[in-house]
């Protein structure tokens, strides 16, 4: 059956049928927001794994920023405190970077998160088969459905990632404050903090969009006749 990425130049041989069906972006946004609001609890659960993974990423990056800020002061006591708290600093090394092990754990947590998102979104698609089928009966194209799912995931991803980045940063900063005192906070560069938070947010949004890709495709390919199904 011709569906999906059919190029709009196929001749139909009939003058009576037109092809223009539209879903303005603003309307799509409105529908997505409503959909999130009505299914708030489900959205929250979908987003939760993202919040956790992103806050972990943010925590690791901000902790490095703090350590770098402390090293940049050149104070040997702070350096000693850092080494005591577990940083492997070679003599003469004036910056820390995430270790291979750290990176590996972060990547793993992001992978687990993406699997969680795919799982939750696939369930959402199954749950919404009737809604999707009905929209298609009303004239929705595959890409309207795609757009709705991507918008929803984008919004969830953005909000979740912002929250995650914020939690991670706050947790990391308060951890540093408790361990090293106020100097740890004051010596940290705000620009680096912002960059770390922005990276974590960006990664979060990207993960959310990646995670919804396959479920959205499944939803978009759903046949309109599904709406007629009576059993659950």
């Amino acid at each position: 059956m011709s569906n999906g990425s059919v190029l709009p130049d196929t001749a139909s041989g009939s003058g009576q049928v037109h092809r223009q069906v539209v879903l303005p972006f603003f309307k799509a946004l409105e529908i997505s927001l409503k959909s999130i609001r009505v299914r708030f609890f489900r959205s929250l659960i979908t987003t939760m794994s993202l919040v956790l993974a992103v806050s972990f990423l943010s925590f690791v990056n901000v902790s490095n920023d703090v350590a770098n800020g402390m090293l940049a002061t050149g104070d040997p006591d702070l350096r000693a405190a850092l080494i005591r708290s577990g940083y492997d600093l070679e003599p003469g090394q004036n910056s820390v970077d995430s270790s291979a092990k750290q990176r590996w754990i972060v990547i793993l947590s992001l992978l687990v998160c993406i699997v969680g998102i795919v799982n939750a979104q696939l369930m959402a698609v199954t749950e919404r088969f009737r809604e999707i089928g009905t929209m298609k009966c009303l004239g929705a194209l595959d890409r309207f459905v795609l757009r709705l799912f991507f918008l929803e995931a984008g919004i969830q991803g953005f909000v979740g990632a912002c929250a995650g980045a914020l939690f991670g940063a706050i947790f990391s900063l308060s951890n540093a404050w408790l361990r090293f005192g106020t100097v740890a906070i004051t010596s940290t560069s705000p620009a680096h903090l912002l960059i770390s938070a922005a990276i974590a947010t960006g990664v979060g949004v990207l993960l959310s969009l990646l995670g919804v890709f396959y479920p959205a495709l499944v939803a978009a390919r759903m046949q309109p006749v599904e709406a007629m199904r009576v059993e659950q």
Partner: protein
Amino acid sequence: MQEKSNIVRVTNVTKTFKLGKIDVEALKGVNLEISKGNYISIMGPSGSGKSTLFNMIGGLDKPSSGKVYIDEVDIAQLDAYELAWLRCRKIGYIFQTFNIIQVMTALENVTLPMVFAGMNNDAAVDKGMQLLELVGLGDRYSHKPFELSGGQQQRVAIARALANDPAIILADEPTGNLDLTTGEECIALLKRLSQERGVTVISATHDFKMLNVSDQVVWIRDGRVDKIENREELSISIGQIGSRE
């Protein structure tokens, strides 16, 4: 070539499904012509191919062989965009399970097809309100589906089906999930709309209440059209229908 008044024309349609390794022939050569403005009921036991035929007429499924013309357009020739346009503008769907989109209010449900059709928001809202008033729900436009009874939801669905002034309304067991009285109300509403607006109503049904208002009843049996009865013949054999029930 063909009569102008035929809104749906089905010629020699067969449909074969693959169930595992077995081919199941759901339709075995169906010919059917439906004239504009009529109220048609497609009756038949389950497994007769009734739903398959119904889905073909609605452009939801394509035949294995033969042709289905909707408004003299061969639906097998249409691509995804044209099919979507056809569903949006030419056909209004009514479902057994109502299928009101849960996250939207009654009015938003009714205006959605108009949004797809590219109508601007104010015009869509005006027309949506008119349609809701037409089905007697003018005061409940802001209600969510779960705040409406089954009969009210089905009336919202009828208003939604009428949104883009379709030529055909396809109703799949529209009274299947309704009690006797609300079912009768919905049937009366559909009949009135078909008469007032000249819309062709095609419904697949088990419901004998439908027969009273039908201009034509198509009986499907074993993948073929068993017989087509017109209204006049129906009223004569009404006792017989009663006894079939």
